[in-house]
């Protein structure tokens, strides 16, 4: 049950500064949505929250991300540990193509940890159930993960992230490549996940943000325009620009 606090965070790709002193807090058991037009830095921000940003060549960060009070960018922190505790789901479903459904689900557990076959089975089932996929795949656990439909693949990726028992779940436009039915399924899933996780989700879909999030962060050009409770943001925002964006005047 952990709180993620971003403090004065700036980020660069090479010489280009894409985040400007961003401040935001993701509360436990709440869904925090990051919205904004393409290129506003929302994906960069979420990738900074588990140190995935630095995997891009030339990428750089300044500022702090406090995870339960600990700065994940402090020099004595290993990004590998950070990512085990702060899981991530990507825009495009990315199950490992040579692995079966079961192997995909437990892929993260195989790293570093030593688990018996029965432990793996228990955890795989738990994660697949939590991701709402168990009923659909329980008879085909040894099928290739890439055989599943797009929506199922994305839920498999969520299960894979859950199986390592993270404390925070970051989702970078998890439904943007999915059809409406699968999107609805993912949104329902997020509702359930927030009971036990801190959830941060990037979305370009404002209705989605309004439906599922408790807090909303609106960004433009790498800067925070407004951060507040979702209900307030979508009814009476403080900023004119927020209102213009959510009423569809630009973006």
């Amino acid at each position, binding site marked *: 049950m952990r709180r993620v606090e971003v403090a004065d965070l700036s980020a660069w790709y090479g010489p280009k500064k894409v985040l400007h002193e961003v401040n935001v807090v993701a509360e436990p058991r709440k869904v925090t949505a990051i919205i904004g037009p393409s290129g506003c830095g929302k994906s960069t921000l979420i990738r900074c929250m*588990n140190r*995935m940003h630095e*995997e891009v*060549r030339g990428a750089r960060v300044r500022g702090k991300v406090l995870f339960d009070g600990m700065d994940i960018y402090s020099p004595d922190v290993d990004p*590998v*540990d950070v*990512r*085990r505790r702060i*899981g*991530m789901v*990507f825009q*495009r*479903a*990315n*199950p*490992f*193509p*040579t*692995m079966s459904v079961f192997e995909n689900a437990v*892929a*993260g557990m195989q*790293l*570093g940890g030593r688990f018996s076959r029965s432990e793996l089975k228990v955890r795989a089932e738990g994660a697949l159930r939590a991701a709402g996929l168990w009923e659909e795949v329980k008879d085909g656990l040894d099928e*290739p993960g*890439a*055989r*599943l*439909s*797009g*929506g199922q*693949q*994305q839920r498999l*990726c969520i299960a*894979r*992230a859950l199986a*390592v028992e993270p404390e925070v779940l970051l989702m970078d436009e998890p439904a943007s*490549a*999915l*059809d*409406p*039915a*699968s999107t609805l399924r993912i949104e329902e899933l997020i509702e359930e996940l927030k009971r036990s996780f801190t959830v941060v989700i990037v979305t370009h879909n404002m209705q989605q943000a309004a439906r599922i999030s408790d807090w909303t962060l609106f960004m433009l050009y790498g800067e925070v325009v407004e951060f507040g409770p979702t209900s307030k943001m979508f009814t009476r925002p403080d900023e004119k620009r927020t209102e213009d964006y959510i009423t569809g005047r630009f973006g």
Partner: protein
Amino acid sequence: MFAGWTGAVALGLVGLLALLLAELIVGGWRTFDRFGLGFFLGRAWNPVRGREAFGALPFIFGTLVTSAVAVALAVPVAVGLALLLNEVRGFVRAPLASFVDVLAAIPSVVYGLWGLFVLKPFLDRHIEPFMTSTIGTVPVAGALFRGNPNGPDLFTAGVILAIMILPIVTAVTREVVAVVPRELREGALALGATRYESIRMAVLPYARSGIVGATMLGLGRALGETIAVSMIVGNVPRIGASLFEPGATIPSWIASSFREATSVGLHRSALMALAVVLVIVAFVLAALSRLLVRRTASLVSGETPGAAETEIPKVTR
């Protein structure tokens, strides 16, 4: 117009290949006619008139063994190099990459000379005796590494070949490693994989079929390499377990004996027939590699990530 030109050029190439093969087969015909299948299975090679006997087996053996040694040594190094050059940032990248490319530009006769005067003495003195006294004591497989460390041998030829095919295998492996989707690497990293784990989990499985293809390309090069091998393999038609004894490959044998081959007897024809055998071996390996690449590729193909779009009709129907 364009289709006509390209078509003509393409047909011309096919025609050229057919002509070449036909010439070889015609040239070697007298040998095939006289020895039949025995040519492929025979072990003797005697060009003396009246006592002529020609068999290709020792050369097929030598070709396959040296190439196998080359691939066994080169592929792990090439994969490691490709991963280092693609996945690891640092100041060694650029110089190392151009160094590997330069290896490809060195003429093979230079490799031969270097192999003969530098590598061979080194292997003879230090590596081969050491291998004999260590892995050579293993039952069965150890027989490969026993024998006379001195003198030309199949192993030295294999090592030279390994160095010679390293650039091509590395280059192709780099290509296939470079096209592994970012999402897969990031998927592994986001689960808390170290860089090494992400390579093992996401990069290598995806690149597997490409690496097999690269290996086959290197194998093809090793099979046909002539002059460097000819200089260090000993050119003794021999079949035996030990890698530390001399042997001969098809190209090395042709290169070392064509000068004595007159058109009077069967000798010249036998060398032509040997060339046909080499072409057959190369063809068979190319076909096998096709098969192997397809088999390993099918494990990855199907609906790789991002197939979401194609799935929409099914779900919303």
